[in-house]
């Protein structure tokens, strides 16, 4: 019995950091409507700076002072980030905000390694809380008890701050209606900045307080952010009480899950999250969001079938691509195959995003599942390559069917966070379930059969499949299903009103996109000859998003062009610098701020501008509009 009590208390102690970070995320989201992906990065910087300060200054004052100063310093960094980056993207679509802050995270990951080195840093114990308390023969670290007391105290302080101060009233008002707050004379800019500073302070404090418990390392940002996303999805984004309850719930599930499923404890958290989402899609303490009204004119270019000239051009491009083996060497062909595979991957996400309006942040899960599917079939069942290629993607299909069912219950940022959490769960399973997946060592020796083994043959195979997949998805866009899907994207309510089962349409699209990604993954497994957990990791998911954005979400050829440019650039970049994350992150931030319409979108805009220049005054503008208000 005592053991379970101690386990329970350990869970409560772990909840402290989780609660601090999650409440910060929630507060920021409430007012700015930005899901701050970089929140995990702020948590990590908080831990690193606190480590440095507590090592430098000794004694109790050095430790506690160091923790607080670290959190304040990071809050200051947060203010800079808000003023320089976020202010430019408050009015951008939420996808851009998530991506922009993710780019920041990437940069921070490289920066902390530059400053503090790649090794784990073990911080010192908290003065006054070094020992342990004996509880019926079980030891409880006294620092854990401190953390257990701390979270309700912080919750209380936050409550007072929001209920009893003018600042808190303004923040709560802005959470509901920012424009109205401005129309009452409140400077939104500073309100946003101060809210961001408070949120970042909480995250950094969570990181700083973690150093006596855990080593500081440069991957702690992603680990916490995924857990925090799970917490806010369960607790309800924007609710501090929800963050508290869900943080405790998730930590306890982790603490006891380890006893039940030692290898895959995350399953338990996933099951609870799924249950909550079915009953209350907006979280335990959240409020259902009013269906967002799309700004008219957001989709500048509706999808249209290619003209016969464009068809010829696409065909010509394909023929040119097919002649690559005639003059290129083996390395170029391997790169070519990889690019073709990533075209499949990007096109599948592009389909989901631009036609379905569903921005998945965990699309790599289905790519990786396809790869693992092939590896299982080839290595364990010993099936021939063709069969593996046909059946392997089914694993991606099944994963998309299960996760997609839950994901399409949500929309917008919730959808993005949930897909990310799912992908991370799949990654954890691949990483932890060593007996089946080989864990970190992956599954090796998945080589193509003789007919496809030579680089040129494999290249043709990949190119052919990529072309087929792209055509198939395009045909689907112009099928009745495609029309229905576009209708759900533009207005969910109206779609339901004309008798379409919108959720089912979206679910189908999710499964189609997942299966397609799985096809890419299946080919990828054969190209590399191996499968690793990274094949379904977050960074691959984000690669896909960047490809789509780089090409342009609203454009027809965005996925294809984006994949080619990005992959080529990426391969070149990795060969040039060790700081690829820093450069890539900076690049993402740049796209988000400067070229929100992507490459193809930019070209189209330039072309349009040139066309517009000749006949002045379009008839649209001269006509008075009835719906003036």
């Amino acid at each position, binding site marked *: 019995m005592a053991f379970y009590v101690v386990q329970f208390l350990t869970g409560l102690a772990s909840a402290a950091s989780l609660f601090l970070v999650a409440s910060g995320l929630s507060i920021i989201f409430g007012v700015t409507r930005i899901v701050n992906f970089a929140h995990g990065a702020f948590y990590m910087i908080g831990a690193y700076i606190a480590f440095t300060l507590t090592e430098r200054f000794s004694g109790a004052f050095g430790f506690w002072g160091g923790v607080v100063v670290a959190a304040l310093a990071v809050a200051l960094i947060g203010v800079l980030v808000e003023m320089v980056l976020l202010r430019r993207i408050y009015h951008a679509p939420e996808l851009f905000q998530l991506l922009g802050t993710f780019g920041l995270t990437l940069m921070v990951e490289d920066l902390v390694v530059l400053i503090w080195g790649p090794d784990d840093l073990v911080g010192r114990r908290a003065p006054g809380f070094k020992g342990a308390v004996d509880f019926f023969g079980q030891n409880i670290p006294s620092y854990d008890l401190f953390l257990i007391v701390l979270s309700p105290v912080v919750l209380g302080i936050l409550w007072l701050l929001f209920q009893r101060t003018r600042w808190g009233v303004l923040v709560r008002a802005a959470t509901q209606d920012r424009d109205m707050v401005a129309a*009452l004379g*409140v400077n939104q800019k500073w309100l946003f900045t101060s809210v961001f500073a408070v949120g970042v302070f909480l995250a950094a404090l969570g990181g700083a307080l973690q150093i006596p418990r855990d080593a500081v390392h440069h991957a702690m940002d992603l680990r916490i952010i995924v857990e925090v996303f799970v917490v806010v999805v369960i607790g309800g984004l924007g609710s501090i009480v929800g963050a508290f309850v869900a943080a405790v719930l998730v930590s306890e599930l982790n603490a006891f899950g380890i006893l039940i499923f030692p290898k895959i404890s995350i399953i338990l958290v996933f099951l609870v999250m799924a249950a909550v989402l079915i009953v209350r899609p907006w979280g335990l303490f959240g409020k259902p969001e009013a269906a967002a009204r799309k700004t008219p004119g957001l989709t500048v270019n509706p999808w249209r079938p290619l003209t016969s000239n464009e068809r010829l051009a696409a065909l010509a491009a394909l023929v040119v691509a097919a002649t690559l083996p005639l003059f290129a060497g083996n390395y170029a062909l391997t790169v070519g195959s990889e690019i073709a595979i990533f075209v499949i991957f990007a096109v599948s996400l592009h389909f989901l995003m631009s036609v379905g309006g569903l921005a998945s942040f965990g699309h790599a899960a289905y790519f990786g599942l396809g790869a693992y599917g092939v590896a299982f079939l080839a290595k364990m069942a010993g099936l021939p390559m063709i069969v593996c290629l046909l059946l392997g993607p089914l694993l991606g299909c099944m994963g998309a069917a299960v996760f997609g069912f839950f994901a399409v219950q949500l929309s917008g940022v919730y959808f993005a966070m949930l897909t990310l959490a799912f992908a991370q769960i799949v990654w954890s399973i691949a990483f932890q379930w060593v007996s089946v997946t080989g864990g970190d060592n992956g599954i090796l020796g998945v080589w193509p059969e003789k007919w496809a083994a030579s680089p040129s043959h494999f290249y043709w195979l990949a190119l052919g499949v990529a072309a087929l997949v792209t055509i198939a998805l395009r045909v689907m866009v112009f099928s009745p299903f495609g029309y229905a899907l576009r209708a759900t994207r533009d207005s969910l309510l109206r779609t339901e009103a004309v008798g379409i089962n919108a959720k089912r349409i979206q679910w189908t699209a999710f499964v189609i996109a997942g299966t397609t990604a799985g096809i890419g993954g299946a080919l990828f497994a054969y190209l590399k000859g191996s499968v690793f957990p990274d094949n379904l990791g977050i960074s691959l998911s984000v690669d896909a998003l960047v490809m789509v954005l780089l090409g342009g979400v609203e454009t027809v050829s965005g996925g294809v062009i984006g994949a080619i440019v990005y992959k080529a650039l990426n391969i070149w970049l990795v060969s040039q610098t060790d700081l690829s994350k820093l450069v890539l992150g900076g690049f993402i931030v740049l796209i988000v701020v400067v070229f929100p319409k992507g490459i193809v979108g930019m070209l189209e805009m330039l072309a349009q501008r040139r066309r517009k220049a000749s006949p002045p005054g379009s008839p649209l503008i001269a006509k008075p509009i009835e719906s003036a208000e």
Partner: protein
Amino acid sequence: MKLTVQDLNSHYGPAHILFDIGFEVGEGEVVALLGRNGAGKSTTFRSVVGLVAQRSGRIMFEGKDVSASPTHEIVRDGLGYVPEERRIFTDLTVEENLEVGRQPKRPNAPHWTREKLFALFPNLGEMKNRPGGRMSGGEQQMLTIARTLMGNPSLVLLDEPSEGLSPKIVEQMVDAILTMKKEGVSIVVSEQNLHFARLISDRAYIIERGRICFGGTMAELDARPDIRDAHLSL
């Protein structure tokens, strides 16, 4: 002049909504902006306080050009705005709603306190701790006006204050507006209801399809039944 608007043009995306709008409000005056649904009344107000991003023209408030200022600065200069949709903070109590609107005292404008406002709108005083979401439409309308007055404005843009209210509440509203006027607040009130406008206004403008097509005193408007009938639905 308290407020002068010249050549105001506004767009929503590709749609041109307001065409060369111009009007004036004198010190302590109540001016009505009359027009049908969709004529551009709300857009005019939203443009004046800077809530419409695409606008051009000259907006002079107390001799200062505010046409490029952000919303919160315009409001802090003393130009209050009461939106048509009320936009009460439903999670906040009556007192907290008022707190959001609170701004420092202004030398050239009446100073409003909670007590003074509760005297002006007695209903609000009886429900200080009620969340805005659990109030009737009329009570919400009073709260929006009170909330804006907490900013001690010298001029208020009132967007359709009588809309959807029962006749009894409308009467209270007339009294409240006349009290505001007596205290020295200049008011621009947008209305579809000519009867209501007549009770409170000194002058009127008529807006139709985004253009001002009449401006004059209430007596001048009454002398032109043709204009009244063409542009206002009675």
